[in-house]
């Protein structure tokens, strides 16, 4: 009997080793798996390649992970934000490698990985600095850039509800990269606000079918504070 929700954060994350390539869901803080990131920080692995839309905000979550020096390279579309000082400093000090990808190409390359495609011709970025040195092709009157899939060893994502087979539903704009990252990683770890019984998620409305998810970790809500502090931000409060 398969139970993908039977382990705690520490246990689940312990599979991640130095040098891993890790997708992290979220657009800004919405959908960012804060507790999984904290768990990753506690794990202390190094030399990571991180794929995320941004490069962290403030001093918590992804920014905190960067601050520990654990990240060798980040692939993202929008690292520069008003509160991205952690990344800014590392970048200016030459301590982190940046691969800047237009947001839609980021999404599309992640999708290509999940779909098993070898490469795609995308119109985005043609003729720009971000396509320099890349192969291009004129197809049916339009110009395209050849882009390769972005795969990952792990995807850490945040969903709203999950069951023991790994089926997931999300909440509002926290969905963003979750479903496509789940498809592109060898091992997808989803933190959820609620674990539900098999059959509680309507098969018509499962957003991420369990085939794309290897672990479901329930995060215990411990406060009713809003926003980024919605849930306790220490990994040790996690239960499964």
């Amino acid at each position, binding site marked *: 009997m398969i139970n993908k929700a039977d382990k705690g954060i520490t246990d689940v994350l312990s599979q991640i080793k130095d040098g891993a390539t890790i997708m992290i869901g979220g*657009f*800004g*803080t*919405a*959908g960012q798996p804060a507790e999984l990131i904290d768990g990753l920080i506690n794990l202390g692995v190094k030399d990571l390649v991180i794929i995320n*839309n941004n490069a962290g905000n403030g001093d918590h979550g992804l920014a905190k992970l960067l601050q520990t020096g654990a990240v060798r390279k980040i692939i993202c*579309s*929008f*690292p*520069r*934000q008003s509160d*991205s000082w952690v*990344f*800014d400093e590392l*970048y*200016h000090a030459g301590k982190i490698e*940046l691969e*800047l*990808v*237009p*947001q*839609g*190409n980021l*999404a*599309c390359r*992640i*999708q290509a990985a999940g779909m098993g495609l070898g490469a795609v011709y*995308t*119109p*985005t*970025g*043609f*003729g*720009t*600095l*971000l396509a320099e040195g890349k192969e291009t092709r004129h197809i049916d009157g339009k*110009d395209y850039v050849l882009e390769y899939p972005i795969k990952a060893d792990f995807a850490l994502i945040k969903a709203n509800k999950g069951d023991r087979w790994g089926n997931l539903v*999300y*909440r*509002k*704009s*926290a*969905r*963003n*990269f*979750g*479903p*496509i990252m789940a498809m592109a990683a060898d091992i997808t770890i989803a933190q959820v606000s609620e674990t539900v019984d098999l059959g509680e998620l309507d098969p018509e409305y499962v*957003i991420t079918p369990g085939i794309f998810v290897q672990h479901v970790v329930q995060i215990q809500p411990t406060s009713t504070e*809003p*926003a*980024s502090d*919605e849930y306790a931000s220490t990994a040790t409060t996690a239960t499964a």
Partner: protein
Amino acid sequence: MSHTSYTVLTRDQIAERAAQDIPDGAYVNLGIGLPTKIAQYLPDDKDVFLHSENGLLAFGPPPAKGEEDPELINAGKEYVTMLDGGSFFHHGDSFAMMRGGHIDICVLGAFQVAANGDLANWSTGAEDAIPAVGGAMDLAVGAKKVFVMTNHITKEGEPKIVSELSYPVTGKKCVDRIYTDLCIIDVTDKGLVVTEMVDDLSFDELQGLTSAMLIDATN
């Protein structure tokens, strides 16, 4: 910037004017910053569907104080609400809407627009700046119509509408229309065609504030 006889449009006035050109039933992406203001001026009797890169269609105005939901934000990371008939989807589908030509109109800010419709709005090319692009390049190539909303000249008085870009390009030959605080310009095969100007501005004055050649079609 010095002028005597005419009044430049405020940011709200540019937004209000641009809003008039958005037809009933249009699927529209409003870029972060100035273009976002257009939402306030969309008439109630039209169904205009606002799209946000992070997976929202038909979102509505900001929530009432205290009703903010950190998981209901737009691409500018502002709190929004959902209209009845709205939907959520993942980033793949969201950018399919953009890249696949399903968005009727996107309105973007600009550092520069060139005479041929080239757009620069993602990087000034400054050596020490951290590059960041977001969804700008996707919108530029993907939307059926690309509108630009911008001040006509920079704070330093430099023209933003130019013969050729000096800043790094976001999208080639992508801009269809430019709304500035001075005028409206259609980007056409014949060149930049001015269709409206603020009162008391002469075409020659406008040309003087523009480093690309303009064509007067205001009368």
